[in-house]
């Protein structure tokens, strides 16, 4: 489990109260505060239009913040033009220069920095070796596959050893298998080269596998910044719970609070124990969130503190596990994820089953 001691490292980038509006009417980014430590892999995750690219562009210098400041160490970045920021950037469509060969593309940032020709050649050869594309050096980007182009774009953004690497959905155009392979490669590069990476994606799986920390965006606001496991286990609000991983929700009311825990009433007169989410108190409306794999069925449910009967709608067989869709009061689409071995093959749709879960597997979150 990744630890959470980033505060120990020196902060490299700091967003302080950053705001952005394009049209002067609505804020696309509202009061963004985010610190990125050196060597950290931070992902900005969120649905389309939530302002991720805008944040990245402000960091790269292609957009100016309407309010607030961005710092690089102690230096205020707002007035530094993009070509002086020394950040490597990988674009969604790679933006490889089509009229230059792979080699010329990778050499470009060295040329702009006035590196001597032989040193530049050595560095290009080194990085081509690293991305295993030496034999493609003289080809044009148009003659490469998507994955190869992706690697060239990466090499071009890394060859000048930038202090920060920005990536805007760099894997969006690749198919699933290649994407997973590239995720590992990028992660690997991050670890071996000690890069600081700000990565943008709207694919939560990608965010969880690659990042040290993930910032979940919605509507221009960071909903939660945390390690992948904390995001999954301890979502701060129902948006995060719903956005990260699979989730069952039950709407109810907080009945009583005892420390971190509470009891909540849902349906007509059902109650369950739950972990209390931030900002909630007794008597308040809540949305309860339970992960499908934490819901137990029949035999496995015996002895659990929260049990109830439900009618099964449907079984969906997925090889290593089954998804059992049941109707609960207030949620017709309640899903339990059951390992195939634990499953009673005599069950049929329309049968009643007993569902059960522990108190700590339920989060009582905001009802929005």
């Amino acid at each position: 489990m990744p630890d959470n001691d980033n505060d120990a490292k020196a902060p490299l980038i700091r967003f302080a109260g950053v705001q952005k509006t394009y049209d002067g009417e609505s804020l696309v980014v509202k009061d963004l505060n985010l610190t990125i430590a050196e060597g950290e892999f931070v992902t900005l995750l969120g649905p389309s239009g939530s302002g991720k690219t805008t944040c990245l562009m402000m960091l790269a210098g292609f957009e100016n913040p309407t309010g607030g400041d961005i710092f690089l160490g102690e230096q205020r970045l707002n007035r530094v033009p993009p070509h002086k920021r020394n950040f490597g950037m990988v674009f969604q469509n790679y933006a490889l220069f089509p009229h230059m060969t792979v080699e010329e593309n990778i050499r470009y940032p060295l040329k702009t920095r006035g590196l001597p020709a032989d040193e530049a050649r050595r560095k290009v050869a080194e990085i081509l070796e690293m991305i295993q594309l030496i034999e493609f050096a003289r080809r044009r980007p148009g003659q490469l596959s998507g994955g190869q182009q992706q690697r060239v774009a990466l090499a071009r953004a890394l060859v000048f050893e930038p202090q920060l690497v920005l990536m805007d959905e760099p894997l969006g155009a690749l198919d699933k298998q290649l994407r997973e392979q590239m995720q590992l490669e990028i992660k690997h590069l991050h670890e071996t080269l000690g890069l600081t990476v700000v990565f943008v994606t709207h694919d939560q799986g990608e965010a969880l596998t690659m990042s040290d920390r993930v910032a979940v965006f919605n509507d221009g606001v960071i909903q939660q910044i945390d390690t992948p496991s904390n995001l999954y286990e301890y979502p701060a609000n129902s948006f995060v719970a719903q956005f990260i991983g699979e989730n069952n929700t039950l709407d109810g009311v907080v009945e009583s609070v005892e420390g971190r825990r509470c009891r909540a009433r849902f349906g007509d007169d059902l109650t369950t124990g739950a972990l209390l989410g931030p900002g909630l108190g007794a008597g308040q409306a809540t949305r309860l969130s339970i992960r499908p794999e934490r819901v137990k069925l029949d035999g496995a449910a015996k002895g659990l503190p929260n049990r109830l009967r439900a009618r099964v709608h449907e079984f969906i067989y997925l090889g290593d596990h089954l998804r059992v869709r049941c109707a609960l009061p207030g949620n017709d689409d309640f899903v339990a994820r059951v390992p195939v071995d634990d499953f009673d093959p005599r069950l049929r749709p329309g049968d009643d089953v007993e569902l059960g879960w522990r108190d700590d597997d339920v989060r009582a979150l905001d009802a929005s």
Partner: protein
Amino acid sequence: MASTLDPGAPAAQGNLKARLRRAERLRKLKAVGLVAPLALFLVIVFVLPIGSMLLNSVDNGSLRQVMPATAASLQEWDGEGLPEAATFAAFAEELRDSRRGGGLGSVGRRLNYEDSGFRGLLMRTLMGLPRESDDWRATLIDIDPAWGEGVTWRRIQAAAPPRTDRYLLASVDLERGADGEIQRVDADSRLYQAVFQRTLVIAGGVTLICLALGFPLAYLLATLPARTSNLLMILVLLPFWTSLLVRTAAWIILLQSNGLANQSLMALGLVESPLQLVFNRIGVFFAMVHILLPFMVLPLYSVMKGISPSYQRAAVSLGAHPFAAFWQVYVPQTVSGVAAGTILVFIMALGYYITPALVGGPADQMVSYYVAYYTNTTNNWGMAAALGSILLAVTLLLYLVYHRLVNRKQMIGS
């Protein structure tokens, strides 16, 4: 046994091939049917006229049709002294018969290109020609002593073969001398080399000005928000909606001595007396650039529209100054648009006729002016076709060179 061949296989294969052929044939027929009207149209409006122009430029006129015997026997003659008596006889009889048959007019016009007194000579001879004669040679020389000179006959001889290079040579200020070798024409009648040169200079100048004006304009159109750029695009296309003559006339009015341009310049105190802006090269450039600019802007725009702004951003993020990014990353990607625009404008400019004729001076007329002159005024199809053919050849040659250059540039890639 596994090794025995299935006897049905080859037959089935042949069958399959036949089926494929039949299916393909139908598809091909459909394709040809669809293309045929266009192909026919191209042949009628493109291949035939150009072919007939090329033929006209080497056509030697109608002497062979009107006086076949004369032409045949003159072609045998070695050009020394005088032709044989039989040639005199054939000529005299065919000249006499042309009274009835006609065709003498076109022969006279053709022979006049050799010597401007020839038509008169033919008419005088025809007038004095008896019905019959025992010695046509003596009779002809009697009518006009010119018939006793070898040079007269050599001129007719020049018109005898079916093809001639005289028009093509004349189009580049060359001619054949007395003994058939190619030489330059007299210094004071040289004209066409200068005209071709002028045509290329004007077309090239117009193309460069169009590129210089069109590139930033197209860039603006491609990068502005859609609303503004659509409005600007209408302004760019506006000239297309008015007649070329009207636009040219408008330039005359604007640029003349007491026109708006000169009055504004004088009112601003930039000049003291009106500038000569029209009926000279300046006027030609103004009017032609105005008319041809859209043909530069449109291909450039369509190429630029397809270039994602992320290329320049990428270059800037890699440390290039925005100007360097523009020059090193953006401009090379527009090469195909620049190539299309310049070749389009240049080739269209080469053929310009009305505009230089209206807003240019005598020294600004381009090749097309002389083509029009020969077709409309003097009916000399040979010269008109020859000038056109040479222009076509020069254009093709330049195009090939240019194509090579642009391709090489794209291959090298920066």
